[in-house]
């Protein structure tokens, strides 16, 4: 089996950075950071967020869920990009990472139930119809596996990796995979309670970083067997080459200080791709802007890839979109390879003495064939995907 058996034929992204991948690339290329106060729910907290401000018309605001609306917008873009206009009846696997859409956590419903002992079950009905992978599978009429990944902040990256496993096992011919999450009061209050929200703008890997900003969005890839893509007349370009995941077995909320789990997942992804570290042209790091994450990730990346690694975090443009992050960052990584450049790592100014490497401070040209996207998550989960570009 050659390395590029599983082609990425479509990309879609929606976030505070833009309502499409194309608009996002313009925005991040110009260094724009679309942050602000929360407007989509009431809160007494004042931490800035990266809210999606673009159109989400009622036709796509499915099942009353903003997450599904964001997902569908990214999926429509990815399917259009792939030229896959008809999905009904095809062996298409759907794998979507999320956090918010997996939880029955409607505050209004629960408050009413507590107060009266009885309340409308409409929010429950919406929840039961809103499992992202099941929703999308039914919406598109696909005939393949459907699975929602709820691995916290690595969910989107894991979804890409699960899709690769499905394709390799011939459980489907095409996969639509990525992540989607909306801003919600529950994680907003939760991350606040953990003391890791930044009162200003996040500054991944910076010496003076003060925490993360939450965001929302969706990032989706269409991945398909090479033979099928070629039969549709697709010109091979990007491909999904490898995936690795691991557990720290260390702590519920803190990464292992030695980063052994992250190293294991990166090694596994490189191994599946059949490449060595020096073939990686850049890394789109998890880079949340928290003290612990960035220190561990910087240490591991420098150990594996050396001190001259080209890397960035795109969370400075999107915020931390939780279950969507791996999907959006995977899409940005693929776009970086294809377009031949990556933006400045927003928010980074000063090197941290405890982090041996520094992300790019300016827009940087890329000429390599492979790139890596990493995710770390609550629970000590680590995930990494290798994306390749043919023809270089």
């Amino acid at each position, binding site marked *: 089996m050659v390395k590029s058996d599983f082609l990425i034929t479509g990309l879609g992204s929606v976030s505070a950075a833009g309502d499409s991948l194309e608009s996002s690339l313009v925005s991040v290329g110009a260094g724009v950071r679309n942050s602000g106060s929360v407007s989509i729910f009431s809160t*007494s*907290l004042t931490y800035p967020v990266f809210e999606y401000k673009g159109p989400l018309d009622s036709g796509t605001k499915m099942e009353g869920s903003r997450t599904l609306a964001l997902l569908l917008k990214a999926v429509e873009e990815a399917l259009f990009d792939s030229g896959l206009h008809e999905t009904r009846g095809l*062996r298409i696997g759907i794998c979507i990472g999320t*956090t918010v859409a*997996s*939880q*029955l*956590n409607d*505050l209004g419903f*629960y*408050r009413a*139930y507590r107060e*009266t*002992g*009885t309340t409308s*079950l409409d929010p*429950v009905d919406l929840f*039961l119809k809103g*499992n992202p992978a*099941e929703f999308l599978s*039914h919406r598109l009429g696909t005939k*393949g*596996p*459907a*699975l*929602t*990944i*709820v*691995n*916290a902040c690595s969910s989107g990256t894991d979804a890409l990796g*699960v899709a690769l*496993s*499905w394709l390799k*096992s011939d*459980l489907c011919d095409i996969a639509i995979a990525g992540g989607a999450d909306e801003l919600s*009061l*529950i994680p907003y*209050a*939760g*991350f*606040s*309670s*953990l*003391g890791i929200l930044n009162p200003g703008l996040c500054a991944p890997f910076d010496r003076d970083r003060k925490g993360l900003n939450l965001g929302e969005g969706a990032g989706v890839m269409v991945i398909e067997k090479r033979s099928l893509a070629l039969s549709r007349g697709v010109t091979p370009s990007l491909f999904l080459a490898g995936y*690795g*995941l*691991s*557990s*720290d*077995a260390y*702590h*519920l*909320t803190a990464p292992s200080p030695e980063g*052994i*789990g992250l190293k*294991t997942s990166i090694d*596994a992804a490189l191994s599946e791709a059949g490449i060595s570290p020096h073939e990686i042209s850049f890394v789109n790091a998890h880079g949340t802007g928290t003290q612990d994450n960035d220190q561990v990730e910087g240490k591991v990346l420098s150990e594996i890839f050396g001190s001259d690694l080209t890397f960035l975090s795109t969370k400075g443009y999107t915020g931390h979109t939780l279950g969507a992050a791996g999907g959006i960052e995977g899409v940005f990584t693929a776009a970086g390879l294809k377009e031949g450049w990556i933006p400045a790592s927003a928010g980074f100014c000063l090197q941290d003495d405890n982090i041996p490497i520094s992300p790019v401070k300016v827009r940087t040209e890329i000429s390599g064939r492979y790139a890596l996207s990493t995710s770390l998550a*609550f*629970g000590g*989960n680590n995930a990494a995907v290798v994306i390749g570009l043919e023809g270089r």
Partner: protein
Amino acid sequence: MNILGIGTIFSQGSGIDALESALENGPLQPADVDALYGADGKRKAFTVDFDSVPDKGMLKKIRRADKLSKMSVVAAAAAVTDSGITDLSDKRVGIILSTAFGAHVTTFEFLDGIIDYGEKNVSPTSFSNSVHNAAASYISTSLDIKGPTLTVARFRFSFQSALELGKSWLEQGRCDYLLLGAVDQYGDVLGYVSENKLNPALEGEIKPFSFGQGGHIPGECSVFFLLGHELTSSSYCSIDGVYTAHDPNSAEKVNLNVLSADGMLKDESLYLQHLSPEISVAAYSPLFGSIMTGGAMNIAAAALTIKKQQTYASPGNSAFPGLKIVNASEPSTISTIRCIDVNCRGECATVYLGRLRDIT
């Protein structure tokens, strides 16, 4: 892949012995659970307590975990113990945990915090335990497993979808062993939801072969399987096929069909199209309750059936025209079992278990 060990925790106890005992002795009465905000005061549910867990030290180690995570750790650890594999630390082990609702009880505790104390004063412990993958994290730390670890959700087919993926992982060498399981917890809100959305079991018992007319009783459980390619003297059976989208073997003759029918669907006659008058059929939900991921418990019961080469009488009602329901617990030659689950859209997930030829 083969089932090397099984661990359970449910209303009748913990460990595979508790499941075997339940299969032999039949259902117990559900508990009367306080309805925290409901007008009627009590609800029926099959709930778990930890008195039956032999390893109290493990429970002490995870005392900060919520009930969902504790159930998961207990079942996962029991699966390892049951396999007879004494040390997993030098082996490449993965974890896939499936759940329909995740840590909803802890999530509502977190919402209690927002309502009672305000957004600025909520509990970080509650929040971190409410994340779906907290249970898998507790398993990995408790058992020192550092391999691929994933938590997945797809309501009724959460477990079967996890199993389908797990088969791929083992085939692709992502790990050599896999702790793969399901967990779902009863809670006050789910009790209210199920009471108002689903038919209650008015006769106090789940009757799977009334196909939805007999009603449901909520339950909670966790069941884990240690899976691998090797064959040990403790192995149960092989898993020969897992299908969540299309079952190419649906016309295949098997020795026994095991259904996940549990009264949660308004119309469970959807199961009938997958059954045949010639093939014996059983369903074990009356033993543990109506649970979205209860299919995993039925698969555990089926695995025990193959390993022990004996049938277990199907609890609840025992007759339905045209069906050969297993009515007796007795020795029997069982080579293949099809485990069938149906969701509210009429979609079907099937898991095929086969007898290991080298095990007598």
